[in-house]
């Protein structure tokens, strides 16, 4: 089954503008760790895998959307940390991964980001982060 999750732009991939974030203090409390993560970058994505190797179709698609816009974003691989994987769902009161944050605010998962991208709203929300022409 080719591309069952309809990952955007599988044919001609733009360059990857996301990077996995290295935590400064992995031994802090869970809420401190999550707070530090969402604040570590203006655009932050909790995902499965990382932008170079996404481990799920929905995570791959959000990365593809962000890469195609050329915005810089940081990520965290929830597959590597069960505490964060569960904790982030309680933090945002949202039951699934991926989760995309803009300036510390939860914006949505893959479906929402894709729809916002298709109707142009995501580009407006990310106006200040788009690469200069």
């Amino acid at each position, binding site marked *: 089954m080719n591309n069952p999750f309809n990952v955007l732009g599988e044919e001609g991939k733009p360059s990857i503008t996301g990077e996995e974030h290295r935590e400064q203090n992995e031994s802090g409390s869970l809420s401190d760790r999550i707070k530090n993560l969402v604040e570590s970058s203006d655009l932050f994505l909790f995902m499965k895998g990382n932008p170079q190797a996404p481990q799920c179709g929905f995570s791959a698609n959000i990365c593809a959307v962000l890469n195609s816009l050329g915005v810089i974003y940081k990520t965290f691989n929830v597959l590597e940390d069960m505490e964060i994987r569960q904790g982030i769902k309680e933090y945002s009161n949202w039951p699934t991964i991926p989760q995309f944050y803009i300036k510390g605010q939860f914006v*949505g998962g893959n479906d929402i980001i894709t729809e916002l991208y298709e109707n142009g709203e995501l580009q407006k929300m990310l106006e200040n982060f788009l690469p200069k022409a």
Partner: protein
Amino acid sequence: MDFEKIKELIINKIEDAEVQITDLTGTRDHLGLVVASNQFKGKMLVEQHRMVMDILKENLKEEIHAVQIKTMTKDQL
């Protein structure tokens, strides 16, 4: 995962909902969900999706591995 049961769960909370469910991977645990309801009117996308997510929260812990949600009002159907 029983698709009829999911439809019931959603209609239980969102009475006028029209629900379409597709099996994305053939394993009945990665679901495509289209939900149309006038209760979505005036709500932001994330709120609309949250309404559906809240209904499925418990099932998402075990039987449903992934869900792709599309929401709309009934006139957008």
